[in-house]
């Protein structure tokens, strides 16, 4: 069963080939057997999953069910789930059970989907390797010596290993697309405002966006349809109709104008990754697309701007974790200041503290204009780069990450880790959507092609990705991990 895509599973469930309970039991068995090594889940909610599966089977017997009825999914552990721990990969929230469900969680449930559990992640979504988790690192099922990428590393690894057919991740600077690329799956970061952020624990509010991670573009379309749309509880969600994202998947790409940003093929790009991407572009040319080089002149400013804006917002967003109302509280505080200091010192990991410090510094009196204001100006320039490029071409293509998955423990220096996001981060600053699709391997490790489009062009991006997946089978490849025993 676990070699099927989410869409194929939906068809099989509808055809009665197996029940949702059988499917759910199958995945739960795999999680139990294999995740000890992978560490992709923080919490597995087997009991609730089976109860939901039975309810889904009963609903199907009565007829008239949602598009995701009975399909098991997993949620990155920063989506609030009522009655289930939502840890954000942090000691700070190890004891936190949300009293409410995130909007996307409600919407998935309304479509009939069920959750197998909450996936591992870099603490508070800060990281590119999933090594910054209180619950330990996640391994890449393609090569257990490699990281799965981050911060949605648990979701990516779990899907790649066939522990769940699809998962939700979040993407603030590449946290869906880079792990999708590292784990050989498809991951979509929607336009900022397309998916509600209500109930998604905030890292950097103006950049965070939830999105699907699955085997295929078709699966991502199925999931996006369920979670997208205006939410009155999120003022930054956009009141704009949600198209049927599967309708245009088969549209022809004849005449498609592809732009290759010069800056995405420069120094630092692994030659193996580059050749895989160039091969993928050739596939598109074979499908009738034309290719031209374009420029995104402010690309080199994206990482500096991001590391001003995101930590600034994070330093404020994470202030609520103070040991007063929920989350970690230190033992025997001597007074209020001691309570704050020790609760936060004990509750947060190193990278989180580093970003809180950076953000606090850049927002401080005397530094605000030089850092935060300047970064916002840069952000506008970066956005304009993309708008200008989309005057000339329909989509932009390039690598999702400069290298394939690197070894666990390989990047000790935070700056070299930050450079991982060189091709993904500007997309969040511009607010546009991006999708990473499997595009081959460098040795045993997968690599991903990133496709970018203008704001709210998800339907087109999914079409472009789907057509590639009709012409290639990279997204059909599965790691050997776990198969020898099954």
């Amino acid at each position, binding site marked *: 069963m676990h070699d099927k895509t989410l869409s194929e599973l939906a068809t099989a469930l509808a055809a009665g080939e197996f029940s949702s309970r059988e499917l759910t039991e199958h995945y739960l068995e795999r999680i139990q057997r294999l995740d000890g090594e992978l560490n992709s889940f923080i919490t597995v909610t087997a009991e609730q999953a089976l109860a939901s599966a039975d309810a889904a089977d009963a609903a199907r017997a009565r007829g008239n069910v949602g598009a995701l009825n009975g399909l098991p999914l997993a949620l990155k552990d920063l989506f609030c789930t009522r009655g289930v721990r939502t840890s954000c990969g942090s000691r700070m929230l190890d004891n*936190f059970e*949300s009293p409410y469900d*995130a909007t996307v969680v409600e919407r998935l449930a309304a479509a009939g989907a069920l959750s197998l559990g909450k996936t591992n992640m870099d603490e508070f979504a800060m990281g590119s390797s999933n090594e910054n988790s209180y619950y330990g690192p996640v391994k890449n099922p393609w090569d257990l010596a490699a990281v799965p990428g981050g911060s949605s590393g648990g979701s990516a690894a779990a899907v790649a290993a066939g522990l769940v057919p699809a998962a939700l991740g979040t993407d603030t600077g590449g946290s869906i697309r880079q792990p999708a690329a590292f784990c050989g799956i498809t991951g979509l970061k929607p336009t900022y405002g397309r998916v509600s952020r209500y109930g998604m624990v905030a890292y950097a509010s103006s950049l965070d966006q939830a999105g699907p991670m699955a085997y295929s573009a078709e699966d991502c379309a199925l999931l996006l349809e369920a979670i997208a749309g205006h939410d009155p509880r999120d*003022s930054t969600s956009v009141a704009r109709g949600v198209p049927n994202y599967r309708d245009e998947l088969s549209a022809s790409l004849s005449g498609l104008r592809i732009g290759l940003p010069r800056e995405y093929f420069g120094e630092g790009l692994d030659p193996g990754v580059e050749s895989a991407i160039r091969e993928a572009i050739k596939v598109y040319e074979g499908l009738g697309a034309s290719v031209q080089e374009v420029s995104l002149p402010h690309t080199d400013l994206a990482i500096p701007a991001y590391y001003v804006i995101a930590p600034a917002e994070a330093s404020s967003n994470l202030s609520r974790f*103070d040991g007063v109302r929920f989350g970690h509280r230190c033992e025997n505080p001597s007074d209020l200041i001691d309570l704050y200091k020790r609760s936060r010192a004990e509750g947060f990991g190193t990278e989180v503290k580093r970003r809180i410090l950076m953000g*606090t510094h850049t927002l401080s009196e005397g530094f605000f204009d030089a850092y935060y204001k300047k970064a916002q100006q840069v952000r506008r320039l970066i956005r304009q780069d993309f708008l200008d490029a989309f005057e000339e071409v329909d989509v932009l293509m390039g690598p999702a990450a400069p290298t394939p998955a690197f070894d666990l423990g390989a990047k000790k220096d935070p700056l070299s880790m930050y450079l991982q996001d060189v091709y993904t981060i500007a997309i969040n600053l511009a607010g546009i959507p991006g999708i990473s699709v499997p595009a081959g391997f460098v040795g045993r490790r997968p690599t991903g092609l990133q496709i970018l489009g203008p704001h709210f062009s998800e339907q087109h991006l999914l079409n472009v990705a789907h057509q590639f997946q009709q012409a290639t089978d990279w997204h059909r490849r599965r790691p050997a991990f776990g198969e020898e025993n099954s």
Partner: protein
Amino acid sequence: MQWETVIGLEVHVQLSTQSKIFSGASTAFGAEPNTQACAVDLGLPGVLPVLNENAVSMAVQFGLGINAEIPEVSVFDRKNYFYPDLPKGYQTSQMYHPIVGPGEVEISLEDGSTKRVRVHHAHLEEDAGKSLHEDYHGMTGVDLNRAGTPLLEIVSEPDMRSAKEAVAYLRAIHAIVTYLGISDGNMAEGSMRCDVNVSVRPAGQAAFGTRAEIKNVNSFRFVERAIAFEVERQIELIEDGGQVTQETRLYDPEADETRSMRTKEEANDYRYFPCPDLLPVVLDKAYVDHLRDNLPELPAEKRARFESELGLSAYDAGVLSSSRAMADYFEAVKDVCGDAKLAANWVQGELSGQLNREGRDIADSPVTAAQLGGLVLRVRDETINGKAAKQVFAALWNGEGASADEIIEAKGLRQVTDTGAIEAMIDQVIADSPVQVAQYREASEDKRGKMIGYFVGQVMKASRGTANPQQVNALLKQKLDRA
């Protein structure tokens, strides 16, 4: 040396929206702790604010009420600091682009003159919760019912020059917000409180002195006393060769003094930045115009109309327009009785006196405006005389009847103007008082004036107060002087 006081006020007005500024929780006062705090107010992980449109509308109405500029775009910022009653670790406020721009408020001073105080701006923000230090055995309790209550902070220019002016300004703000119906203005419940910036400078000096900010003063009286204390403290300090330090102080009403809370060096760096969870508020012209067209009559306009149209004195017009409750009451009385001056006298005299004695507000007067209007009408058409009117008022106050007419009938207080009936009573009194009549008739003309009082009293007594006193007087004089 002659000193001049310079005062600026930051007034926090709680807006009377049903729900909070960024959540759907109720804003009602006095509920059990933490029963009116939802996930958003608690700052739970993942929650997001949604701006309450009524709070925006109320803020704009205030702006229009003080003839302020209403900027097309305003922006919410986060003010970051840690405190247990601040659930998110930041207060959502408006630092750089407030919803109300510069405006001005006219205040009336005791000598009858008026003065304009400039308002620098007014901005929307959320209130914090409340830390409770009692009853927790050395620990602190936190009540977040108030967290997220919408506040309009109105920041004046340093235009006031005395405690009296500051109080007059505060009263003017109070009148405007209650007239607009955007706040209940209840200072005891914290619906209105202010921070007072005070400095002194030698008379004639242009530069301002160093100011102290007195935080969270919550009554008109305390504002006056806090300023009085602070001015004296600063002058003494300077005259003794010292210097005023820029600091935040607290007014202690028990000790009637201000005390230092923290100095400028200890001040927080709030690290303001635009709140990424809220979009800028964009007000289109039609929206603002609609609110402008529907503004109620405000205190200054009402005062002017009371003088010009109703012919009231400046003083009466000022008193009767001082609050919307007072003005509405007065106008209702006037409409029923049809005589503005009589209505003004009764509202300011008998009614206000009784309310003051019992410490009640006009809004919960036991005598309704319709009832008082009915009473004044009967005074005006001479159905009852002044003495009976006071009896009727007392009866209405005590709930002895539904209307003045009912009480007049029940108690038989209708004024007797029938000459025959009055003459009969006079004849009886003259017959019963031979000694007094003889004395009167022997007395000189100027003494008689005093002596006639006795007879008037007897006749009024015989009529149980209902005889028309002027008629009694005239008829008595005729009959006594005749012999």
